[in-house]
């Protein structure tokens, strides 16, 4: 499969549309999954995947095979997803909240935690978890998605998000705290 994919990449970089389509078909679902988790929006995820493939095709000759093609493509897709979120919010939302700003965010999520009566059913807990994921900042959600769902290391996450390893850790900690907040009654 890896050899076959390397051949497709080589052919596609020479302008072979059929070869590039094979690459699209092989990776589209995985890219959609990570983009949907980051954007929390299927339409934005579709746009991000399209932009990712468009950018990848334009830079295919630059891909030198040092990393796996999927890793390279994945990184482009994460950036495309973040760009879609930026466009949606209409401002640079990917700055990491720190200090008091981060505390405020946590306070907000704690205040919004529903009471114990709402937790009787697992469907409601799931909704709470989804709510908390949606309420996370883009950086928190992206760092969490990359670490938890995509299995990326803190080093990889910090490289993709242009953050220090420590800032990536803090983003993940805040994300997990928010998830736990959806499960535990306050006080």
């Amino acid at each position, binding site marked *: 499969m890896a050899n076959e994919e390397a051949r497709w990449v080589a052919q596609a970089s020479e302008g072979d549309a059929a070869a590039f389509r094979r690459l*699209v078909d092989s990776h*589209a679902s995985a890219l*959609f*999954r990570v983009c949907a988790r980051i954007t929390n929006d299927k339409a934005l995820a579709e746009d991000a995947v399209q932009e990712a493939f468009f950018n990848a095709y334009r830079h295919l000759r630059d891909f030198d095979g040092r990393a796996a093609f999927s890793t390279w493509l994945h990184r482009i897709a994460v950036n495309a997803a973040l760009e879609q979120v930026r466009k949606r919010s209409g401002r640079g939302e990917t700055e990491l909240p720190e200090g008091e700003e981060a505390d405020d965010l946590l306070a907000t999520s704690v205040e919004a935690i529903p009471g114990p009566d709402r937790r009787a059913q697992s469907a409601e807990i799931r909704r709470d978890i989804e709510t908390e994921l949606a309420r996370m900042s883009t950086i928190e959600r992206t760092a969490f998605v990359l670490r938890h769902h995509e299995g990326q290391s803190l080093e990889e996450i910090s490289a993709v998000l242009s953050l220090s*390893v420590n800032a990536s850790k803090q983003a993940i900690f805040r994300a*997990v705290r928010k998830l736990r907040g959806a499960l535990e009654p306050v006080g």
Partner: protein
Amino acid sequence: MNTIRDDDLILYHYRDGLDDKRIVEIEDALFASADLRERYASIEHALALADALPTPVPDADFNARLWRQLEPRLFAKTNAAKRTSLRDSLQALHAWLSPPRLAFAAACVLALALGIGFYAGRQSAPVPAIAQSAADAAAVRVLDAYVAEHLRATEGVLLTASNSDSADLLDGNRQLAASLVEANRLYALAAARAGNTALADFLRQLEPVLISLANPSQSAPVQPSEGLRDYLRTTDLLFQVRATQARLDRGGERRT
């Protein structure tokens, strides 16, 4: 006193960001403390619920729809690229570069090679994913630092060209712009290889500007500033140069 925080337990869960000694300490503490086990179970429960959420799956028509939208964009791009002779022109300019400029470019190649070579050196034998990602991140750090410095020089060239009418100054500026062309191309290539296509695109957008500054019209060798002033006024290029440079600087500071 138990010094293991919930944050440590999160890292322990992922076996990431902790050294072996700390992992053993946490294992021992979990074995010894029911309270800690309870806290850890609570974290694992929350993470398990995140796993239980439905995996986003595209609809059945997604791949076909994606290709329908992608294909015309890709082929429009390819045809446009074939029509233009820009690349040929750039090749000619490349040949035109003089030895001092090439020496500067070689220095840039060497600098990049040191950064990326560190990473590449780890590729000669099978390496753990963590070591590879650390090398990858180190290569990105090196690239960011060099590109930020390159953008600082580019900003200076743009400002001098647009603000100065001194023939001597403009001639020196022209040489500096020429020396930046090849470095700009190398950095664009390195950024694209690192998957940072936005930075690569931005640097490629800078290239024709640097080339025109390096090779002003022979008929008006000392008065390129009006056109450039107009260009800088009507585009946000200078702002983008500063913003990108600041972003790269911030990234570097955060990593150190």
